[in-house]
């Protein structure tokens, strides 16, 4: 078990050999895990105080001068700087890498004010912006390292709480823009991101015991969406379930629905937060309350299969 935010912190240390890499914080470096970088490279770490708007544009100014800025805060507070991200970063296509930690209801007891359930949706609407939501610390670390080579900005959501490590020996398959098939099946394809990937694997196991064979995909990149892979599993499985700790509006489920309806109409069940706010509770209690834990993925898979012609 490990938290994706630890993968982010580790990646910043890995990237530090590149002197162009700079780190920006808005008083949450201890939480987002940029603190490890700060401790070792204080001269390349910029404290912006509790000021997210200023942080985003300071990062933009650094990017315009040839640096590779990694800025982080809680996912929910990145939203305060949405217009800065839109007008100051995405529009001039400056390669600023924004990380929102503590995303989703899984963040837990801090309650609904801290549980961003719309970040993936809003950043996905911005041209030029790559949107990531990795499922474990291993993939977060590798994807974050890859970001440094991008010539466009990005938003990455990480999670506060620990989740199972999904990648052990398959690291070479992790690449921005490419979903990873964690398990191959024939009856239904479950496309998940973030903390819901391990829930989906649990669901697949439960489905197996019912004689149902499921494909499970870690769709760590929400944008650009791996359309080739979605097309492939839409054909091979004939029905799809998406799973995310995010509003069912506009996130991974929304992106997959948009693609399927325009290109390869396929029955789709979306597991996600049903357009409501959360409350204080433990991470596992939240997944239960939001009806997105593995039993709910199982039910959605059965509904999806029943919708096949």
């Amino acid at each position, binding site marked *: 078990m490990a938290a994706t935010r630890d993968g982010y912190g580790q990646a910043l240390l890995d990237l530090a050999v590149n002197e162009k890499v*700079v780190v920006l914080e808005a008083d949450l470096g201890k939480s987002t895990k940029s603190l490890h970088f700060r401790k070792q490279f204080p*001269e*390349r770490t*910029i*404290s*912006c*105080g509790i*000021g997210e*708007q*200023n*942080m*985003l*544009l*300071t*990062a*933009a*100014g*650094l*990017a*315009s*001068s*040839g*640096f590779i*800025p990694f800025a982080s805060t809680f996912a929910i507070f990145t939203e305060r700087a949405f*217009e*800065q991200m839109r*007008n*100051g970063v995405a*529009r*001039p*296509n400056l390669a600023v890498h924004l990380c929102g930690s503590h995303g989703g209801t899984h963040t837990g007891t801090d309650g609904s004010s801290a549980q961003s359930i719309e970040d993936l949706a809003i950043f996905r609407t911005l041209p030029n912006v790559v949107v990531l939501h990795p499922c474990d610390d291993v993939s977060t670390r590798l994807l974050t390292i890859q970001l440094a080579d991008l010539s466009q900005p990005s938003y990455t959501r990480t999670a506060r709480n620990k989740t199972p490590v999904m990648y052990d020996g398959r690291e070479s398959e992790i690449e921005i823009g490419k979903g990873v098939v964690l398990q191959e099946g024939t009856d239904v394809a479950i496309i998940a991101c973030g903390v819901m990937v391990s829930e989906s694997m649990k669901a697949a196991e439960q489905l197996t015991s019912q004689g149902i064979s499921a494909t499970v995909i870690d769709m760590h990149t929400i944008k650009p969406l791996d359309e080739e892979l979605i097309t492939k599993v839409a054909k091979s499985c004939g029905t799809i379930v998406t799973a995310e700790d995010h509003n069912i509006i506009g996130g991974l489920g929304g992106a997959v629905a948009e693609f399927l309806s325009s290109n390869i109409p396929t029955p789709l069940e979306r597991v996600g937060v049903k357009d409501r706010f959360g409350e204080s509770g433990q991470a596992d209690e939240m997944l239960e309350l939001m009806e997105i834990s593995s039993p709910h993925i199982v039910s959605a898979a059965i509904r999806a299969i029943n919708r096949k012609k």
Partner: protein
Amino acid sequence: MSMSSTELQELARKCRVEIVKMVYRAQAGHPGGSLSEIDLIAALYANYLRVKPGSPDWEDRDRFILSKGHASPGMYAILAEMGFISKQDLESYRVLGGVCQGHVDMKWCPGVDFSAGSLGMGLSFGMGCAISGRLKGSERQIFVMLGDGEIQEGSVWEAAMAAKHHELGNLKVILDRNRIQNDDFCETQMRMFDIPAKWKAFGWSVKEINGHDMDEIVEGLDFLKNTNDNPAILIAHTVKGKGVSYMEDNPSFHGAAPNDEQFAVAMAELGEVVN
């Protein structure tokens, strides 16, 4: 070679003519804030900024960030005078595909260092440029022009606080204190009380000048250029619409174009012969 006050005044006059022409041709745009800022910008470009019109992306250049990006005609006029863009390019203001976008845009126009259009963003961006200069050991200086209405945006004060925290002595602000914003006089929209005291309280070095008196402008820009141990702000008291009688101190010309008759009056007042 440094221009004299008289030469700077003539440079600014030529820019004023182009500003009014741009807005007149487009029948849209922001003449008021362009005319209030132009004496300052003209002097800055002519005598202070270390830039190379032939290589606008020269890494070690000084940066000029027009945060009040709607006052783009003023910036385009001086960029054309300096040779970053052609006089012909000025005709593309607000025209589809034109280098002179409605608000200054670094993706479209050579010599523009910041894509503006949303107020309260330029100082933060300038901070990033200033930190970059420091990290690279560069002598470059960063000049940010803010509008007075613009400093009602809270994020300006995030940046003001952060710039002092980081002791960015290479970051300089010129505040175009023209006392008018979109809807009305600033005093009506949001009273700002003692603006110099606010910046001083944030730890900045502050100087006030008459933003249309070239001798004072030179003195003020000298102050900015030579204050390198602290972030510095030059508060320039200006007149919105300066140089065109009916636009002066008139909130209606924050964002409106002159009609044919008004255009003729403006050209006459600015000493421009129009066929």
